[in-house]
Structures are given as C-alpha cells and as structure tokens.
C-alpha cells in the first residue's frame, strides 16, 4: 500500500505540467500519423532526365510510357548529346536515361534502341528501385510489342506476395511504431527521475520514508510503465483504425511481450538514472541508447544486414525482439510456436537488466 503513495507522487509530478501531458499523450498520436504517412508513401515521382539520340519509333514509344508513368517525373528532355553529369550533380534528377540507335555488326539499324541508365548512386535504395521501375516499363513494352506480332514471352514469373498481398509498407512498419513510442516515452520519463531528486536534494526525504529499496525502485518504474501502456493502447488504436492495418494474432501475447519489454527498458532507464549525476548526462546517455536501440532494431533496415562483428550489439537489443514479435503477430498472425525463442531472449535480457540495475540501485541508495 505504501508503494501506492510513491506511485501517486510520481504520477502527480509527471502530469503536473500540461506540456508534459501534451508530450506524453498527444504528440505520440501526431507522430504516428506523420510516420504512417511517410512510410506508406512508396517511392514514386522519381525525377529523371531523358536524352533521346535515337531516331527510331521504339525509343519514342518507350519515352512516352515513361512520361505517363506516375513513378517518374521527367524534369528535362533533350535530343542533343550534352553534359549528362551536371543535372545529376546538382541533384535535379536521380537518373538520366539515354537512348541511342543500336547497330548490328553490319552497321544496319536494329529495331530496338540501346538504352543507358545513368544513376545517382548516393541514395542507392531509391536508385535501385527506380531502375527496377524502368526495367519494368521496358519489359512491358517488349511484351506488348511481341504480342502485337502474335508471340508472347515464352516464360513468365507469377509473383504472389504472402502476408501482405498488396505490398503496403504501412502494414510492415506501422505496428513497429508502437514499440518505437513505448521506448521513447518510458526511457525519457525514467532516465531523469532519480537525477532530478539528486539535483534538487529531495532524495533524502524519499530515503527517510518507510519505503524499502525495492519499493522505491518499483515505485519509480511503475508510473512510466502505466503511461507506456496507455500510450501503447493509443498507438495500437491509431494504427489499426486510422491506417486500417489488419490484426491477425493474439492480443494476449502482444501485451505479454510488451510487459516483458517494459521491464527491460525501465530497468535500463533506471540504471542510467543511477549512473548520471546531472540531467544533462542522463539526457546524453538516454539519447545514445535510443539511437542505437531504434536504428539497430530492424525497424528501418533489416537486422540481417548488420555485420557479424556487431551482431552481438543487435542480439542484446531488447527492442529488436519486441519489433519482431509485434510484426509476427500483426502481419503473419503467428502463434507462440513461431516466436517463443524471441520472447525467451527478451525475458533473459529483461532479467539481466533488472538484476544489474537493481544491484546498482541498492548500492547507490545505501550510500
């Protein structure tokens, strides 16, 4: 019961300022919605330039298709040989498409032109996707042209996309945002909480109370856990209702994983709080950890791309497991049989973090 008073005090402290209420409950909704729109926009309107040196009909027809495609925006067109590099350098276009007449060995004109794609390789991902789009346009042209003459391509691949048939990227990214927000909010609420008492010298009052160390520890963690869970529910509602993402799995396991994750992240945040002596230090530690957690979680880029030497960092990142479990549940509707290993790993990390952090907390209090 005594514990309740501490939880209440912490909650009052957090919710006293209306700015804090805004940051905790309104800004997540705004962030999810913006994030949702950013990631659900597929790559399109890729700016390209076209240089057509071919006199053939085929080149003109292909260019016509590029112009009409919503995937490309043709920023410049020219029929003269020119400096291809300048528009790329200035960033006006992401690719230059150059069409030339193709000649065979006897120097007679071939039916189809030669095409050269000059790409800006910096945003390699966009460039690759744009090149893929362009190949698609050309392939479609070939297929149509051959069919006109009564022949089809002899071999075709028929793709089926499992778990996400229309390839909506929001279905993949959306549910992960929930894990993202859970991390940011709870980490920041908790990592500064002890430091604040240190800076304002109110810690002694807390220590003189009849609460024991464990109760203080839990009392510091619980309010953030509660707020985190509320944020998670808000996040889930926004994701499912606003973005219309199907939920296929079990809600029970989703919350179980979230609770285990909360234990891990809160223990970690309290550890930061014990180790830092000013709010500024706590902020830097929390920021550093967040960047690593978020960017190595598989949320933005696949975890498999992390080189072996750094795999260990990814393996102890609790967010990675949470994101994986959330995606398995949301996207594939997988049962526990498919992610029990991840849940177990998450629990092990949580247990390790709680013991290390509790130990440090005790040592700190006894001083």
């Amino acid at each position, binding site marked *: 019961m005594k514990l309740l008073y501490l939880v209440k005090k912490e909650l009052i402290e957090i919710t006293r*300022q209306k700015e*804090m209420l805004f*940051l905790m409950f309104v800004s997540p909704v705004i*962030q999810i919605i*913006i994030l949702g*729109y*950013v990631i659900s*926009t*597929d*790559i399109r*309107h*890729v*700016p390209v330039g076209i240089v057509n040196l071919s006199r053939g009909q085929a080149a003109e027809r292909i260019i016509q298709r590029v112009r009409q495609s919503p995937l490309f*925006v043709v920023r410049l067109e020219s029929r003269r040989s020119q400096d291809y590099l300048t528009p*790329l350098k*200035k*960033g006006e276009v992401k690719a230059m498409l150059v069409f030339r007449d193709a000649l065979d060995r006897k120097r007679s004109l071939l039916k189809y*032109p*030669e095409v*050269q794609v000059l*790409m800006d*390789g*910096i*945003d*390699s991902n966009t460039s690759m996707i744009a090149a*893929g789009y362009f*190949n*698609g346009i050309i392939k479609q042209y070939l297929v149509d042209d051959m069919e006109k003459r009564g022949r089809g391509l*002899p*071999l075709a*691949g*028929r*793709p*089926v*996309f*499992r778990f*996400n048939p229309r390839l909506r990227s929001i279905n*993949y990214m959306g549910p992960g945002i929930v894990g993202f927000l859970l991390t940011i909010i709870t980490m*920041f609420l908790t990592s*500064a909480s002890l430091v*604040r008492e240190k*800076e304002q010298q109110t810690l002694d009052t807390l220590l003189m109370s009849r609460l024991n160390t464990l109760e203080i520890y839990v009392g510091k963690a619980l309010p953030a856990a509660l707020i985190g869970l509320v944020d998670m529910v808000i996040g889930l509602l926004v994701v499912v209702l606003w973005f219309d993402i199907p939920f296929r799995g079990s809600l029970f396991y989703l919350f179980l994983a979230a609770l285990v994750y909360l234990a891990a992240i809160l223990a970690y945040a309290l550890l930061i709080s014990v180790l830092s002596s*000013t*709010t*500024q*230090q*706590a902020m830097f530690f*929390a*920021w550093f950890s*967040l*960047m*690593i957690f978020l960017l*190595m979680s598989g949320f933005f*880029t*696949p975890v498999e*791309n992390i080189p072996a*030497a*750094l795999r260990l960092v990814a393996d102890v990142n609790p967010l990675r497991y949470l994101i994986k479990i959330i995606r398995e549940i949301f*996207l594939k509707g997988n049962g526990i049989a*498919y992610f029990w290993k991840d849940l177990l790993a998450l629990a092990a990390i949580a247990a390790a973090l709680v013991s290390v952090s509790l130990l440090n907390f005790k040592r700190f209090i006894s001083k």
Partner: protein
Amino acid sequence: MGRIKAIIVKEFYHILRDPRSLTLVFITPLVMIFILGYSISYDLNRIAAAVIDLSQSRMSKALVEAFAANGVFSLRRRDQAGHALSLAGAEDLLRRGTIKEIIVIPADFSSSAAGGQAQIGLIIDGGDTNVANLVYQYDERILLEFIAARQKTGQLLKIGTKVFFNPEARSQFFFIPGLVAVILLMISAMLTSLSISRERETGSIALLFISPLRSREIIVGKTIPYIIVALLDGAVILLFARFWFGIPLRGSLPVLLLFALLYIVAGLSLGILISTLAPTQRVAMLATLLSTMLPSFLLSGFIFPLDSLSPVLRAISYAIPATYFLRIIRGVVLKGAELKHFLFEGGMLIALSLVLLAAATGKFNRQRKAAQ
C-alpha cells in the same frame, strides 16, 4: 559586447564544471557513427530462397542453375532430413522468416515452355515491402536473361546501367553523411535545451531576470559558447567519417564547415527556444528529443526520399533544419558540389535560426516582465 562576454564566460564555467557531460558530447557521436555506420544498410547480401522443382526436366534444371549462378540467391532444395522440400515445408520456412521466397516450377513446365506459355510461381514474403520489391526485381532480371540466352535474342534490347558518385551502390555512402547531419542537429539542440530550464529549476533564473542585460544579449550569450563546442564536435565527427569509413570529400572542406556552422546555429537556436518554453529540465529533455529525433529521421530525407512525400509533409520538411544540411552534406561530400549550388539552403538555415532566436528572445522577455 563586453556585457555579452560576461554571460559567455559564465556559460563556459557551466560547461567545464561538468566534464562528464562534455566527454559524452564528444564520445557518444563517434561510438554511434561507428556502430550505426556499419549496421544501417539496405544492401542485401544473400537472399535465402527455396526451390521446388516439380518438373525435373532439363530446362527446369537449367533455370534453377541460372538462379544459383547469379550469386544473389542462396538456394535451398532439401529439408533437414535430406528429402526434396515440399510446398508445405517451404511455406513454413517462409512463415518463420528463414527464407524470403519460394520458387515453384510446375510439373508441366517444359511442355508449356515449348508452347511459349510457361509460368513459374514466385511466392515472396511481402512483409518488408522494400526487400520484397528487390527480390522480385532480381527474379525478373534473371528470367529475362534466361529467355534471352535460350532464344539467342541477346540484343532484344540492350540496357546498360551506370551508377555515379557511389559506383558500388553501397548504402553507407548514403547513410553516414545523413547520420552525421542528424547527430549534429541533435547534439546542438541538446546542448542548449537545458541551459535556461536548469536555471529555472534551480531558481537562479531570477538573477538573470534582474541583471542589466537585455533579453537578446542573454539569449545570444547563452548560445555562443555552445557554437564552439558543437563546431569542434562536428569537425571530429566529419574527420571520423572521412578517415574511418573512407567517405570521400569531393568538395571543399571550408565550404562544408561554413554550412555546418549555419546548421549548428540553427540546432542551438532550436534548443534555446525549447529551453525558454519548458518549465522543467525533464520537459525540455523530452521535447528536444521528440522534436529533433523523429522529424529528422523521417521528414528530412535521411531514410525516406522527399520526392515521394505528399505536399503537406513536404511543406513540413521545409521547417526542419536537417532537410537542408542533408542536401548540402551529400552534395558537397559525395558529388563535389560548390557553395553556389546551396545558396537557398544556406539562406533557409539562417532564416530558421533568426526566427527561432527571435521567438526565444520574445518568450524570455515576456517571462521576465511577468516575473517583475
């Protein structure tokens, strides 16, 4: 000027009194760039795929060979017991995420290929849409090459592709300069974000309020010392990216540093505005992180290309300093672009700083009046 100096000196004492924070300011970005520079990558090394060849004909074997020879796919044909993989077994692997794709060659493959109507099934894990698209594109390319080779119509249409500025298309070249930009903004904003809210929490803000200094002088004086810290930090980060990761510097260093200075001032101004608005350090901390981290991750072009965004989101991106510096740093570092290419971006950074500083001064002035 002499009066501003007093507050600059005072602020320097604040910085030096907490050497641990100062160390963190310099160490954390380097560790971050080191770890993340290797880890954030789109480059798929090998795509694990299962092959179910129900045809077992000469032509189907040649097709499987074409997939294997490409080097992109690592093919799986048997289950753990050594039997040929069944469709159900492969579907389970797909569900587990062990493989990204199942290539199914139907039993009537070779006879229908002779009739010119053969189809193969490509069952792709659509979860990560980015990866799914890449996998499908590789499939298509292999199929087209296979057809061209079989029909001896190699010259069907020659497509040559040449990649500039980043010939191996390594995504490190894309991400590391972006990381530098994002980290620099966050560090700058964090440096100043606590400076006024701390004084408010400890009550020493009253001393600032009654000092003879103008509000403008206090705000500027509190910002200047951090310019030096952040610029040093920026230089260290850039050098690390240059020499550790071998990110080339194709443009001029002074130009880059000049823009970095403008960018840092914008970040510091954002921090100081948050600091005047926030009642406590905790609010300042949460507000700084929320207002810098996600916007500069999402709306600046760091990860997601701006060209594809809707007009509303693009409009928001103009208010984010990282948008401009990302364009500048990628341009100068990777393409050797010059000062004259980025006059607009530089001007916008200056304008943003002025607006933020003016807002901070106005707010501080009002608080001061209210306190008196």
